[in-house]
């Protein structure tokens, strides 16, 4: 049995997310999260292999880059393309989606504003997250800061057109978490974003188009 299989065997499966199994375990005495992209029977094996390798590779390289730039992301400690697996340090905290459900509105607004700044920052670095829904941010218990996780769909791009795609995911995610009050919160998010992001004027026209791209909008 190789090292990776041994590590997984001794760890505890805590969650099956859309593409990966998430385990909690120990590596050299440190508490770690193990993310293993698993084979999906519903995908053709050729496509499945292509996606798992690509996403594992991108996630590791982009997270490393952001870590070096001082962003709050989990630290990748080990990775294996062969097993499509990454080992991260463990971050104790709660998902932002859960936090937003329980917090008072003033605290909600503060968090959403700073989330805008964080996403503006990674966009300035030329990175698109790909799935910045609110379950992909963790509010850490210790320093009460927002960590970004799950870069599986992320890619390199400096185009405001691609950055607008991320904003639309945030908008839709807020809509499902905070159905009634989402517009106010999204505007606060945009304030925080605009404060940091440098191509906002250019991005706005793409973003407005995108919002109308779903099915059957009255004005399109």
């Amino acid at each position: 049995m190789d090292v990776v299989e041994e590590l997984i065997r001794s760890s505890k499966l805590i969650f099956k997310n859309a593409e990966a199994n998430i385990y909690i375990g120990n590596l050299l005495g440190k508490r770690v999260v193990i993310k293993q992209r698993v084979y999906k029977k519903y995908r053709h094996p050729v496509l499945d292999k292509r996606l798992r390798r690509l996403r594992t590779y991108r996630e590791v390289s982009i997270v490393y880059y952001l870590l070096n730039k001082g962003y709050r992301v989990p630290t990748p400690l080990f990775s294996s393309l062969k097993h499509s697996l990454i080992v991260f340090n463990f971050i104790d905290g709660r998902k932002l989606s859960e936090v937003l459900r329980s917090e008072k509105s003033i605290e909600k607004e503060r968090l959403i504003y700073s989330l805008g700044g964080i996403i503006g920052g990674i966009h300035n670095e030329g990175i698109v997250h790909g799935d910045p829904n609110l379950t992909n941010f963790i509010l850490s218990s210790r320093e009460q800061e927002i960590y970004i996780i799950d870069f599986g769909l992320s890619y390199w791009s400096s185009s405001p057109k691609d950055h607008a795609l991320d904003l639309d995911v945030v908008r839709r995610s807020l809509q499902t978490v905070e159905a009634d009050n989402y517009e106010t919160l999204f505007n606060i998010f945009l304030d925080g974003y605009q404060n940091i992001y440098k191509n906002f004027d250019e991005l706005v026209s793409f973003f407005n188009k995108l919002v109308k791209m779903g099915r059957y909008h009255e004005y399109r």
Partner: protein
Amino acid sequence: MDGQFVVLGIESTAHTFGVGIVEGSKDDFRILSDSRSKYVPPKNKGIEPFEAAESHSKHAIDTLNRALGEAGLNLRDIDILSFSRGPGLGPCLRIGATLARFLALKYNKPLYPVHHGVGHLELVSSYYKLSNPLHLLVSGGHTTILRLKNGRYRVFGETLDITLGNLIDVFAREAGLSFPGGPIIEKYAKKGRVYLDLPYTIMGTNFQFSGMLTNALNLLKSGYSLEDVAFSLQETAFSIVVEGLERALTSMESRPDSVAVSGGVASNDSLFEKIREMAGYHDIEAYRLPKKLNGDNGVQIAIVGLKMALSNISPPPIENTKVIQRWRIDEVDIEWM
């Protein structure tokens, strides 16, 4: 008669003119009849709204009479009327709406306007008595992931360009096959052996297919077999949709215990197999209607009329029953249980 209604629903959003009759109460319902007439566009052409509407107006009365005959009823036995108000093609919608208004006035029956997409969702969940499933609506008009929450079907993911139905129909048409392309493409895809790379575009739980369409057509032009390209197109497009569905499912705070697939493309076995595989992995059930009921029909419109009547919702005055061509499904208030 108390708490029990006979409802006649009229569907005419696109190529199908349908009349369905259901009888039901709070606990159960029965389909008494389901009659349809279908407009088929000329070879190598898409649906032409005015031609479709003309075909609908020609066959409307006959379709209505067949539905009544099948159910062994006449119009006086009907308690409630409903019709598909939108979204869809204006000329087609107006044929169904006009017939519905005429019947409502002449026989003095309550008339409920219904959102076509909501009809697909309500039919599958009533049929299997599902409580708040995660829905995937896949048709020519929608490719949308939804769930009922606080009185609306909230969109958890959707296509940002063309629908799965469009993708398959346009591909089939460009390949010189007849309309509707779905069943023919499915047949060719079953014989495909080689998986060819195609663009895989997913952003969170939203997706795009138009890049894939262009690429698939180019593969066809450059000499790859229709079987292999159709197979690769289905494999890639379906994997994207199932991944979107899986992402929506796993990010939900309160997980549903079932997935319900509806709309014309739900009849594709390869798509449904993939969904069942994904659902099984997360220990939940996947459901779809008998194939006949996946495509557009009057029954899905009647079932929503029934629910509205059972919840004592008052129908709007007849002058407020204008069709709505563009009508987002998440703007409809769901006021029934």
